[in-house]
């Protein structure tokens, strides 16, 4: 498995290279000229030309890419067009917030979805199943921004338990930090929980009908052991796939939730980069998102083997 993981990691390099070429080209194809946006409508032609030159946009695209690649290989992903801040630092500042939110949301999703999904599958048609279906339907139907505002109204304004926005420094205010994380994580976690619970329910229902489950029961195994060792374990593969994809999504930033809770994550940085056509920032940002997906995919693949020993890594 170690060898497999290393090989996969090595494969990421060419993939990242190809992605970087594609992203570079696509970004430059998006309509909108950073020099014109930054210079504003009152700029003179000379000012526009000066900014275009300053950003290096007057050179051929391939030359711009080669320069970028050369710098990227030395760890320099460029500087923001607007404030000249190193973009890898800009992203590094946001990644911890995004990572923290993604993990907390995933944790909340798992602790809601697993009991709900399992109970719903074990007693199809029961009250628990009905409530689980209702929860899923509501979660799918309720838009994130609305749920977020509702949570703020309830927990911040009415009960005054949780801060409505921000992310206090953990070192200075650990309790406030955790309190500030609860609502954004809950908003994202609830939506994810609904998906996971539905997948888990249907995967378990599928497995419960299998012959080997009947055999396990026939040989006198306790119901708890049947469910945990035979049913749940076999039903987990599709759930892990969904969980992996969704976590990748969360790692690429949750724009709406970040905006409502003023959470300083990657999502808002992406919006800022697109809005200003800040090519260097956008390029680095998209590469981070691709890398996050690749790592999550690898972890997902490795997790399969943990739950299903039949899966071999070669």
């Amino acid at each position, binding site marked *: 498995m170690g060898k497999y993981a290393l090989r996969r990691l090595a494969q990421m390099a060419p993939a990242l290279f190809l992605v970087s070429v594609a992203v570079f080209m696509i970004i430059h194809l998006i309509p909108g000229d950073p020099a014109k946006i930054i210079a504003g409508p009152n700029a*003179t032609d000379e000012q526009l030309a000066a900014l275009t030159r300053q950003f290096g946009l007057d050179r051929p695209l391939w030359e711009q890419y080669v320069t970028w690649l050369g710098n990227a290989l030395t760890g320099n992903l460029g500087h923001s067009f607007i404030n000249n801040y190193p973009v890898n630092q800009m992203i590094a500042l946001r990644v911890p917030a995004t990572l923290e939110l993604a993990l907390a949301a995933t944790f909340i999703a798992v602790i809601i979805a697993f009991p709900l999904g399992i109970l719903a599958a074990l007693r199809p048609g029961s009250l628990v199943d009905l409530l689980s279906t209702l929860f899923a339907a509501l979660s799918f139907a309720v838009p994130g921004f609305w749920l977020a505002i509702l949570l703020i109204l309830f927990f911040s304004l009415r009960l005054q338990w949780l801060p409505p926005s921000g992310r206090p420094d953990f070192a200075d205010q650990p309790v406030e930090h955790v309190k500030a994380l609860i609502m954004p994580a809950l908003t994202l976690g609830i939506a994810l929980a609904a998906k996971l619970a539905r997948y888990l329910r249907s995967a378990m229902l599928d497995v419960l009908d299998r012959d080997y489950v009947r055999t396990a029961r026939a040989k006198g195994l306790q119901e708890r052991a049947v469910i945990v060792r035979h049913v749940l374990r076999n039903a987990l593969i599709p759930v892990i796939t969904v969980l992996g994809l969704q976590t990748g999504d969360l790692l690429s930033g949750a724009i709406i939730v970040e905006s409502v809770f003023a959470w300083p994550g990657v999502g808002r940085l992406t919006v800022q980069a697109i809005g200003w056509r800040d090519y260097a920032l956008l390029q680095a940002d998209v590469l981070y998102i691709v890398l996050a997906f690749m790592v999550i995919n690898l972890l997902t693949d490795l997790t399969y083997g943990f739950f299903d020993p039949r899966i071999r890594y070669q």
Partner: protein
Amino acid sequence: MAVKKWLYPLIVLALALAVAACAPAAPPSAGEAPSTGQAAAPEPAAPTGPQPGGTLTLSLGNDFVTFDPYFDEENANFKAPIFEAPIRISDDGGFEPWLAESWEMSDDGLTITLHLRQGIKFHNGRELTADDVVWAVERVLDKDKGYHLSDRFTTATGATKIDDYTVAINYSKVANSALDGIARLYILPKEADETVATQPIGTGPFMLEEWVPGDHLTLVKFPDYWREGEPYLDKVIVKPIPDPQSRMVNLLAGSIDGLWGVPLADKAMLEQVEDVVVDESPPGFSFYAFIMNIQEKPFDNQLVRQAMNYAVDRDKINQLAFHGQANMTMLPYAPTSWAYPADLEGFYTFDLDKAKALLAEAGYPDGFQTQMLIRGAAGPYLDMAQVYQQDLAQIGVEMELLPTEIPQYFPKLIGSEFAIVSHGTGEATVDPSGLFEGAACCRPFRNFFGITEDTTWFPEYKALIDKASTSLDQEERKALYHDAVKILLEQGWTIPVAWRQQVYALKSHVQGLRTDLDGQIWLNGVWLSQ
């Protein structure tokens, strides 16, 4: 579904409780605790005067992208707490000495000499001298660094140091708008040139403690500030909260003391909240407008342009697009301006019959089809265009709306790639010349709306503006601007609709906070009454 029937009422009850629990809370009234985690406090004693100390927390909406004071975008209304200029726009609409204790204009009007105060320090501890002002002017004139401020120094040729505290700024021609430029010439130390975008250093009342992008900006009181006793606050925190609804809830919950960018739809509601004060920047500088490209058919026809003016129902636009909260205008100057042409009020009124008759006279009795470029994918520019679209339909004009996100919008605007546009224009200047020398809508040069030297009325229009710009006689200038506005209305390519104003809301314990006449958030005299 094997759910027992008796369970249904219980489920309904549980759902009802959940919904009730989540219902929006009523805005806090007097006596109710305004802040998270705070117990209800007794009514504060009547304030006796400014009290020093305290932390003010604001949200302006989006995060800062740069602190460079020559850059006029995101949060550009937050320069004054950090940076200062040699003079400033006073509350009565004139200019007052600031970093410069006095100034004078040479007899030929080509030189403005500034006499700087002594002993003013930058946040890095160095004293401000004439060299810094000379360098600031050079920076404005530098094509790489002048950004949006350079537009206010188009006639400046440079600056010369006379002594350590005296600077002369030279101009190639008399420019009545020169003082407007100097009032925005925020001075930073030369050594901060490369880092000012992320680590601002000025001479203002507050200095940077930390900026965590996306999270917060913390400013602390500058202990060596040159104005005795100011500022009162110890600390100012600015939190980016991009979502306007969330921003309002943060204000109600007490996690911020003030916010900028109150949606007009929510202004009336916020005004009802007892411990919240809603205010707005004065009208008179920038306005919402529909503007036509006079090179594009059918707007190359003056009669069509006039018909388009008669089809604007400002009352309806105010009610439907601005929730009845906007100050509408047909003229490009506010009544507070000395150049306000009062006799031109009502030059156009909402009159669809007249509009239809003009279209018929222009050869379009059945109307025509056109497309309107909209600034932004959503928001006021689209909202007001939708109301206009309905009225135009009644005179046979089918107008397709093209909402366009900002990065694509400006290149299209600058490239004149449109027939008509829903835009925001105007130039914040004390001197009325700003409208014709800076504002995209109305200036005769670098005009995106098809006005060129070949335009038949161009020479007359340009001559009026040039003469008004260089005349030193206010009465004469008023008459010249009057005639220029008249041409603007007769030719009708720009249709002013409503004033663009900053709407902000503050907790009632915040005293003395306002936007000044330049739209800058003015924190010098702000104090907290609790």
